[in-house]
């Protein structure tokens, strides 16, 4: 569903874009320094769970940043975007002050722009393939900040444009799970005229965007606006419904569903299986974040409890680990620590998240690995034994392998330990479909182009296929699956 080169050229040759290009010399454009995202003061924000860290660009800042973009003949940035946003077109719309038009451009291919503008690792995608990064060796255009600016402008204006939707074709399709892959899938399918129902097991729609990512990084209200847009376009949402359990795939086929997209996520947290790991006070990042984000456990007027810690250790170095440790800090931890077995350089978390964590006073115990936990007489963890690590040869992931340093164990006080070392695919769907082909890790095997599984009417994407990735890669899968399913359904009708 990516745009053709001809279409992009045609759009670029439109009069207004040519006019904008002529207004300023490229040399002048490249001399503008990259905008800095305004942020709340670290000491102030580290006390509040629901206050966003980044406050967003002003109109003036956005227009100036948009001027840096040279509207390249060959926009390589688009190749770096998993959902193929027409990046120069939206940025040039910002430059000329047509912010609503910029938002509409985003929504041509991205059903969740306000989300992606906040949580995408742009530095590894569009911004990495930007001409500035590649050829000028200068900081890239702040594409992510601009995406957020345009999407927020539209949300705040209250005048939200909906993408064009084809006349209903009456064909029922389902998405299983309501996270980013399913929402992207649903957005594309409803635009094509399909009758789309999204089934969600929890009592809230949004998947990881709701239960996982904290509000200081992605406010729930931002997610809800985008979900409401999908509902206005005609997508139906069914909460508290587990496909394969509440009703089987066959039951749904009897109700007229012709094809299914499975975006059920990688909802099975990994643990290290070390001694003492089942003591109270040791929990998965999924549990901790779900209690705080989805169940509002830190708010006394809600019934769900959450354990608070004075010395909180979060095991892992990814974005989820950063989300967990920064949440612990906000809930009052005196010492909030990351325990990571490699060094800062190998950390999978986004640079921005690590920077924010450091500003907020998070301690980093890098090149350390827990080997055992100890508890008090009630069974609540009170101490962890860490082993020092050093880096050896690169492993299959290309990162240098952590190697334990002998006789380096030492103990650190910890009364809350959050394990954020990754997730495994959720077994519910594969166990409901014995004939579905899965890998030995439990991920669903699909055709990489069409996302079709071994069962023709079942498509899949996101973490249930990838085993653990990003919001935007999941959305890219959802879009490819929509295109693949559309082709498949046209073929059989």
């Amino acid at each position: 569903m990516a745009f053709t080169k001809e279409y992009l050229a045609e759009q670029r040759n439109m009069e207004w874009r040519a006019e904008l290009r002529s207004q300023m010399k490229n040399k002048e454009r490249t001399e503008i320094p990259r905008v800095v995202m305004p942020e709340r003061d670290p000491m102030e924000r580290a006390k509040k769970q629901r206050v966003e860290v980044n406050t967003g660009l002003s109109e003036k800042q956005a227009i100036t940043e948009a001027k840096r973009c040279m509207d390249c003949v060959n926009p390589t940035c688009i190749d770096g975007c998993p959902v193929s946003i027409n990046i120069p077109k939206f940025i040039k719309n910002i430059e000329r002050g047509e912010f609503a038009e910029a938002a509409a451009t985003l929504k041509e291919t991205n059903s969740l722009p306000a989300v992606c503008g906040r949580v995408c690792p742009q530095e590894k995608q569009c911004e990495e393939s930007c001409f500035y990064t590649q050829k000028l060796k200068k900081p890239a255009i702040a594409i992510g900040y601009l995406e957020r600016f345009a999407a927020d402008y539209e949300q705040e204006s209250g005048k939200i444009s909906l993408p064009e939707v084809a006349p209903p074709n009456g064909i029922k399709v389902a998405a299983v799970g309501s996270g980013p892959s399913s929402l992207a899938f649903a957005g594309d399918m409803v635009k094509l005229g399909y009758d789309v129902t999204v089934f969600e097991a929890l009592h809230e729609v949004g998947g990881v965007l709701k239960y996982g990512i904290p509000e200081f990084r992605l406010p729930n209200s931002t997610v809800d606006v985008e979900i409401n847009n999908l509902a206005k376009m005609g997508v139906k949402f069914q909460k508290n419904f587990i496909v394969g359990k509440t009703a089987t795939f066959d039951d749904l086929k009897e109700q007229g569903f012709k094809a299914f997209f499975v975006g059920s996520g990688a909802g099975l947290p990994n643990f290290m299986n070390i001694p003492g790991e089942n003591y109270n006070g040791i929990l998965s990042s999924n549990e901790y974040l779900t209690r705080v984000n989805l169940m509002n456990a830190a708010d006394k007027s809600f019934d769900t409890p959450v354990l608070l810690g004075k010395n909180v250790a979060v095991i892992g170095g990814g974005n989820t680990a950063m989300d967990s440790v920064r949440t612990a800090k906000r809930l009052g931890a005196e010492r909030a620590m990351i325990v990571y077995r490699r060094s800062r350089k190998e950390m999978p978390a986004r640079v921005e998240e690590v920077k924010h964590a450091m500003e907020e006073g998070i301690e980093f115990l890098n090149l350390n690995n827990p080997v055992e936990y100890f508890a008090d007489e009630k069974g609540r963890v009170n101490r962890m034994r860490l082993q020092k690590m050093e880096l050896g040869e690169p492993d299959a992931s290309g990162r240098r392998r952590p190697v334990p340093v002998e006789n380096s164990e030492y103990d650190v006080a910890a009364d809350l330990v959050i394990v954020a070392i990754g997730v495994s695919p959720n077994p519910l769907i594969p166990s409901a479909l014995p004939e579905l082909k899965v890998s030995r890790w439990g991920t669903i095997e699909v055709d990489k182009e069409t996302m079709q599984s071994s069962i023709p009417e079942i498509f899949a994407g996101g973490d249930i296929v990838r085993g653990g990735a990003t919001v935007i890669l999941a959305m890219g899968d959802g879009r490819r699956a929509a295109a693949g399913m559309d082709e498949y359904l046209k073929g059989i009708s």
Partner: protein
Amino acid sequence: MNKILTKEKFSGNVFRFEVEAPLIAKSRKPGHFIILRVDKKGERIPLTIASADEEAGTITIVVQKVGVTSAKLCSMQPGDCLADLVGPLGKATHIGKVGTVLACGGGVGIAPLLPIVEGFKKAGNRVISVLAARSKSLVILEKEISQWSDEVIIMTDDGSYGKKGLVTQGAEEIIKREKIDECIAIGPAVMMKFTSLLTKKYNIPTQASLNSIMVDGTGMCGACRVTVGGRTYFTCVDGPEFDAHQIDFDELIQRLGGYAEEEKAAFEDYMANK
């Protein structure tokens, strides 16, 4: 929203509810559980399904007032709606023709035992049920269990009904009397622990249905971790039933108390402001 249709008081703290849930009534099997949320600020709690009426589109749950959520639930009336109800969750009980089945239920654990007893009886087994509770008023569902049992033995701690003694005493009498091919134990963790120790002594395969702490109930959070045979399992997706002789009951009991302080404080707060 799931409407409460009927409410029956078993004792001061134990109630039976019949709740509208047509899809679950149709798809549930013995051993399955549901997760519900009382209201928009409520927590998600797991409850095993006691019975279901597919035609009426209802399921039955039995609730004991122990904390904020169960107290809120027990104060609800027919016509009220639960904010959320999802299921059926967990793996269904493996029911086959094994010969003679000994079904041990303790307290509100008798409720989830009911569909399993029914299942084993319908599969052609001889079923002997041992129901145990602190005192007479806490012995629930005796009539329903009797309907699917060849024999029912009642045990109470205080001797106010049936025989005086623990579930294990009743069970051991049966085990000594005749050959038991399989045992099912559902109830408080301590009761299951001692039932398991008893049947291990006699080499009787035993299943226990665990009531671990859960949040989502779909495998996502891992709050319900339990050690079985030295390996960690998730009660929600791998259970709720496991080989009782392999379960680390002491760890289970410790983990059930993982939020005890928070729960106690919240309950006191709730009762004070009621």
